[in-house]
C-alpha cells in the first residue's frame, strides 16, 4: 500500500531560484535561506520517497486567465521546465508517474474533488523552487512527482477549509493505491507578502511564526481563516498559504517536526517546516 511518510511546508519565492542558478548560495544575505534546506535534503535522502506530490500555483507559465482551473492535477510522463518570461531555468525536466496521477485523479473525483487533469504541463517557480531546494537533481531528479495546482491568484479562490479537505482526500487516495510507494507532500507559497498597491512589501513576521506553530499543532484553527483575514494581516499574496493546509490535511496528527526555519530578507516571509509521520 502507498503511504504518506512526510510533509513539507515551504515558500517558493522565485528570486531564490534565480540566486541558486547564479550560484549565490554563499552570499551573506542569501546563505540563511540555502543553509535552512540542508537538513531537509539530508532527511529526505534518508526517508527515500518514491513520489513527491507538490501543491503549488501556476503564476502564468502553463496556465492563463482564459481558463484558470481551481484545482488541477498533472498526469504526464514528464514535466518540462516552463518559460515564465525569462527563459526556462537550467534544470532537468521533472519525471512524473502518470499511473499514480490517474489513480489519484480517479479517487479524488469520485470523492467529489473535481480536478482538471493535465496531460501536458510545464512547471514553474511555484513547483521548482521547493523541488530544487529539497532534492539533488543533477543529472536527474531522485523522485517522481505529481503536481497539484490550486488557484490562489484570481479570486474567488477555494477556501482554506476546502484546501485542507483536499489534503485529507489526497491521503485517502494515496492509501487506496496498492503499489508500495513512499510519498511526501509539499505545500508551497507565502508566507506574508504583498506585491501590489502602496502596501507592496508588507511583511508580518508574527503572523508567519504563528502560522508555522499552528500548521504543526493546530491546523484546524488555520482552516477558519478567511481570505480577508489572511490578506489583511499578512498581505494580499500571502493567501497562497492556504496551499500549506492541503499538505497538512494529508498528514496525520502523529508527527515529528524534523526542521523549521524562518527568514524575511526582502519582500516575502520565507518559511520552512518539515514533518515526519511517526507510524
Amino acid at each position, binding site marked *: 500500500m502507498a503511504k504518506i511518510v512526510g510533509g513539507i511546508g515551504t515558500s517558493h519565492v522565485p*528570486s531564490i531560484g534565480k*540566486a541558486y542558478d547564479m550560484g549565490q548560495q554563499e*552570499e*551573506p*544575505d*542569501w546563505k540563511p*535561506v540555502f543553509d535552512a534546506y540542508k537538513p531537509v535534503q539530508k532527511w529526505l535522502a534518508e526517508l527515500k520517497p518514491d513520489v513527491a506530490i507538490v501543491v503549488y500555483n501556476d*503564476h*502564468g*507559465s502553463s496556465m*492563463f*486567465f*482564459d481558463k484558470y482551473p481551481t484545482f488541477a492535477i498533472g498526469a504526464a510522463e514528464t514535466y518540462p521546465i*516552463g*518559460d*515564465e*518570461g*525569462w*527563459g526556462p531555468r537550467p534544470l532537468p525536466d521533472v519525471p512524473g508517474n502518470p499511473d499514480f496521477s490517474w489513480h489519484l485523479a480517479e479517487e479524488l473525483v469520485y470523492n467529489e474533488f473535481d480536478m482538471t487533469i493535465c496531460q501536458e504541463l510545464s512547471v514553474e517557480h511555484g513547483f521548482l523552487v521547493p523541488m530544487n531546494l529539497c532534492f539533488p537533481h543533477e543529472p536527474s531528479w531522485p523522485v517522481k512527482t505529481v503536481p497539484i495546482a490550486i488557484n490562489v*491568484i*484570481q*479570486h*474567488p*479562490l477555494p*477556501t482554506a477549509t476546502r484546501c485542507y479537505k483536499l489534503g485529507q482526500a489526497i491521503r485517502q487516495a494515496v492509501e487506496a493505491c496498492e503499489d508500495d510507494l513512499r510519498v511526501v507532500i509539499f505545500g508551497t507559497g507565502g508566507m506574508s507578502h*504583498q*506585491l*501590489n*498597491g*502602496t*502596501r*507592496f*512589501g508588507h511583511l508580518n513576521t508574527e503572523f508567519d511564526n504563528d502560522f508555522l506553530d499552528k500548521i504543526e499543532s493546530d491546523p484546524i484553527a488555520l482552516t*477558519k481563516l*478567511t*481570505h*480577508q483575514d489572511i*490578506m*489583511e494581516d499578512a*498581505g*494580499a*499574496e500571502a493567501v497562497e498559504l492556504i496551499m500549506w493546509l492541503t499538505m497538512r490535511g494529508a498528514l496525520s496528527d502523529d508527527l515529528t517536526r524534523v526542521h523549521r526555519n524562518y527568514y*524575511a*530578507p*526582502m*519582500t516575502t516571509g520565507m518559511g520552512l517546516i518539515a514533518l515526519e509521520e511517526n507510524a
Partner: protein
Amino acid sequence: MATQRDKSKTIPGTTIFDGAESRKGYRINKFAMSFTKSENREAFTADEEAYMESWDLSDPERQFLRDRDYRGLIEECGGNIYMIMKLGTCTGHGLYHVGAQLRGQTFEEFMETRNASGAR
C-alpha cells in the same frame, strides 16, 4: 458559508485581483503573458510599437507600456503582478523596481526599508 471577502472593507493600499480586475485587465495580461515565448520577447525588443500594434490594447495601456509605468498598468489597467513581471526581461525592470514605483519611492529608498537587501 463564511464570507471569504468583506467587500465593504477595503484593505488600505491593496488591490485584490478578482473577477472585476481580471476582466478589466484581460487585454494587458494576455499581452504580458505573450512574453513567455522567446520569439515574442524578440519581436518586442526589435520593434516595440509594431509588437504592441499587433495586440488588442487601449491607448492608455500602450502609453503606460511606453512609459514603463507599472503602477498605471497594475492599478489602472487591471494588470496582474505575475503577468506584468514577465515584461521585465525586455524592459530590464524587476520586481523591486516595480514595487518601488507602486510605493512611490525610488529603488534605493525602497531597498532601505528591507531587512537584508543583498537577497534580491
